[in-house]
């Protein structure tokens, strides 16, 4: 297999965008092509989850490739729930590594806000098992709430720890122009003060308003190429060194151990193995914090901390910018936003920015190894990526 490098990146603001989905997809592609000076590609992968329902557009990649005037290159839409982004990157990686393509563009795009909030929640709820979960009115927040309750009971994680994740990520996002939320919050405002229950109402006990990420629109792009083509861009060489994917039972009730996220564990293991690295080698990570509890649990399952110690590390400040292992320097899904299909690509874009040294105020010093975890469904399909800076 050939080595695969990231030659260009692009991103839109993650917020409510009033542009058609196809444009939300094309814009970051344009940005990536401009910065890499690449004018043609061999294949396009578009990651998206809700286009057929929210935007009434099937075959999204076919629409995007024409919109970007890149025909007759091949194009495919990749749908893997919230893990669509990293899955599309995985396909792009395989295309270049196998020798079949030299230049692959991976775009993630989503425009859920074209429909109202209730409809968007229902689209996301269609990830659940139709016969044993959906019929009960289960939505993703309720699954996260049940999981959080178990975790709090077993390992002593408290609402305060969940609040700390939100406060940290909101703070990080203040320095991220593209983030959805530019809102500094405090533990006093969301938990301690007597008005906290109005500021931060319960959504799915014990998860509260500030424990859940917003619904965002947005797009992001990565261009993956061979070493030679990447060298021509003159940018620092960032290699996609490891890709790992794993699955788990569809219904959350069937998980072997209710407090384990085995798919995360397995996918991370595969990703590190391919990159020939270990969790302790990572300098910066973007984990999937659609709900604040997930950042804590994923940081343990991928191997950064012992099981049950993630919240302690968070408490000690390990995972904030300036700490030993900054997690979600972009603001994570909580503050940067969660345009479902674009998230995985957005995470990768942040890591590449960090490894190139171009992250400005959010820069993690001397970051050479970056890691992302893209969490599909509720932990039943996870894709992890490991990026390495060379030279």
């Amino acid at each position, binding site marked *: 297999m050939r080595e695969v490098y990231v030659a260009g990146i692009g991103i839109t603001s993650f917020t409510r965008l009033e542009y058609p989905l196809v444009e939300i997809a094309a814009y970051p592609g344009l940005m990536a092509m401009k910065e890499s000076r690449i004018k043609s590609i061999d294949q396009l992968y578009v990651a998206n989850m809700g286009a057929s329902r929210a935007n009434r557009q099937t075959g999204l990649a076919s629409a995007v490739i024409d919109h970007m005037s890149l025909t007759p290159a091949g194009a495919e839409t990749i749908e893997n729930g919230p893990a669509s982004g990293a899955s599309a990157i995985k396909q792009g990686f395989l295309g270049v590594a196998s020798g079949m393509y030299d230049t692959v563009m991976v775009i993630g795009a989503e425009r859920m806000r074209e429909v109202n909030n*209730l409809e968007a*929640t*229902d689209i996301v*709820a269609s990830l659940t*098992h139709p*016969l*044993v*979960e959906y*019929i*009960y*009115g*289960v*939505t993703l*927040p*309720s699954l996260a*709430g*049940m*999981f959080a*309750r*178990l975790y709090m*009971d077993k390992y002593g994680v408290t609402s305060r720890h969940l609040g700390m994740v939100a406060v940290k990520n909101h703070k990080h996002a203040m320095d991220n122009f593209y983030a959805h939320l530019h809102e500094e919050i405090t533990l006093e405002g969301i938990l301690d003060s007597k008005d906290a229950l109005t500021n931060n*109402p*319960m*959504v*799915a*006990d*014990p*998860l509260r308003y500030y424990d859940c990420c917003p619904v965002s629109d947005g797009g992001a792009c990565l261009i993956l190429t061979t070493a030679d083509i990447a060298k021509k861009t003159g940018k620092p060489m960032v290699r996609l060194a490891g890709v790992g994917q794993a699955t788990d039972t569809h*219904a*959350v*009730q*069937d998980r072997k151990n*209710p407090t384990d996220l085995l798919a995360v564990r397995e996918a991370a293991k595969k990703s590190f193995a391919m990159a020939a690295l270990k969790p302790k080698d990572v300098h910066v990570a973007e984990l999937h914090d659609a709900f604040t509890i997930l950042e804590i649990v994923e940081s343990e399952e991928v191997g950064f901390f012992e099981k049950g110690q993630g919240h302690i590390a968070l408490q000690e400040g390990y995972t904030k910018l300036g700490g030993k292992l900054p997690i979600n320097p972009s603001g994570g899904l909580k503050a940067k936003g969660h345009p479902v299909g674009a998230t995985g690509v957005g995470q990768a874009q942040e890591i590449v920015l960090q490894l190139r040294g171009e992250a400005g105020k959010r820069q993690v010093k001397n970051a050479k190894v970056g890691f992302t975890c893209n969490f599909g469904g509720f932990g039943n399909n996870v894709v992890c990526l490991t990026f390495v800076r060379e030279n």
Partner: protein
Amino acid sequence: MEKNIYAYKCKRCGHVQYPYRTICRNCHDNDHNEFDIVPLSKKGKIVTFTHLYNPPSDFETVCLTLGIVELDDGNRVTCQLNIPKPKMGMKVAGKVEVVRKDEYNKYYGFVFYEA
């Protein structure tokens, strides 16, 4: 007539799985539909639960109590809890009732009460 929810017992190896899967999770050796149906137990204990505010629009209530219950026969089910103050580990007994309605259909599922 009292309704049941069924699990599926592989005719080859006897492994019981719920929900339905085409291939037996244990032996991977069954033919198409080679399963016997086995009613799920209606007694168990709460593994975890949540109170969901802002439930989906088809529900008229403002708050929905959902849970995962481990049945006496070892299977776990997601369900609605008709229990005002649930606790993890609480013993519960269930019935199969209408759990969701949309314009045309009624959906039946488990509702658990305090035992």
